[in-house]
């Protein structure tokens, strides 16, 4: 007899020695907290979405505005902040909408795809935060040079290529480090999901 057919025949008998929970025990289980991947993605995403906001609030003290004023970037900074808050708000709304589409009662493939798409929104947000911080940092770096006493008077003697090169490389290294931490975090969280998603996807193509 085919191995699987033999197993199928025996399968029903498994039920005889399965554990059994009484209603009382099941009621208690309903009160427990979930530890699912989706819940963790939700928590981590909220932390990440507030990351940009916290970063801004943390740096925006009196001294910061004074310095910004000194290097003639006050208006530009206000505009940058307004735009970045609007973009962050957009990401939060979009994230929430995507999160709502995750349903455990969907097919496995759809469920996994929806989880990955939801994560993609946060991934885009992180890329946006990193790139925009990079650009802002670069802008501040150049303007501080332009308006720093001692440097601003001798601008023609400065080797701009070297200065900008150093700036770009240090910012890139910093961003790369943050990206590494981010990839590691999700890599651990989604290892199993990604493996199973690929398995199902490979089946269909």
């Amino acid at each position, binding site marked *: 007899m*085919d*191995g*699987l057919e*033999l*197993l*199928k*025949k*025996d*399968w029903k*008998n*498994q*039920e*005889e*020695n*399965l*554990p*059994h*929970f*009484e*209603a009382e025990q*099941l*009621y208690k*289980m*309903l009160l*427990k*907290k*979930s*530890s*699912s*991947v*989706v819940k*963790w993605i939700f928590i981590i995403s909220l932390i990440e979405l507030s990351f940009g906001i916290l970063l801004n609030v943390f740096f925006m003290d009196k001294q910061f505005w004074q310095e910004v004023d000194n290097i003639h970037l006050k208006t530009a900074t206000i505009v940058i902040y307004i735009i970045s808050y609007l973009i962050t708000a957009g990401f939060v709304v979009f994230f929430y909408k995507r999160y709502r589409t995750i*349903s*455990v*009662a*969907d*097919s*496995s*493939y*759809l*469920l*996994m795809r929806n*989880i990955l798409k939801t994560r993609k929104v946060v991934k885009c947000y992180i890329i946006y935060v990193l790139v925009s911080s990079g650009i802002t940092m670069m802008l501040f770096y150049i303007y501080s040079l332009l308006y720093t006493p001692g440097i601003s008077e001798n601008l023609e003697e400065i080797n701009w290529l070297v200065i900008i090169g150093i700036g770009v490389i240090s910012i890139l290294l910093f961003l790369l480090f943050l990206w590494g931490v981010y990839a590691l975090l999700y890599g651990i*969280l989604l*290892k*199993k*999901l990604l*493996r*199973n998603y690929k*398995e*199902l996807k490979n*089946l*269909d193509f």
Partner: protein
Amino acid sequence: MKKETEHKFVKLLEEHQNIVHKICRMYTYDQNSHLDLFQEITIQLWKAYPKFRGDSKFSTWMYRVALNTAITLYRKSKRKPYTHDIDQFSFKIKAEEYDDTTEQQLKIMYAAIKELNDIDKALVFLYLEGKNYSIISETLGITEVNARVKMNRVKKKLKDILSA
């Protein structure tokens, strides 16, 4: 109203809990993780219950949520035992068919399905539960043709293990 819903849900779960236990047996290797996965599946079922419209059978809906929890949402990494711990499965085939070879074959089969990957396990599980390919493909979200192709591959894999 909430109490009433809770009561109805627990009653249905109690009635159909064997499905969840069988999935836990497929996907976990010890009693603690069995309990842990059962717990997570229960929470997911309860969370999804308000959206259960009753247009499908409770058990069909339950297969989907429970399997999804096991292969997608459950976070704990699986800890494989060093030896094939298949004692948790029992072998009870009708007395007249029962012989050493059958028992041996069943042992090998149960050990073999424990070694399959998550998706293959889901396929085999639904197959053993007597679900047709239409249900299997709907549950996993693949086409019926691909479900058949995949199932045939798994069958061959298991057959090879048995004849080895």
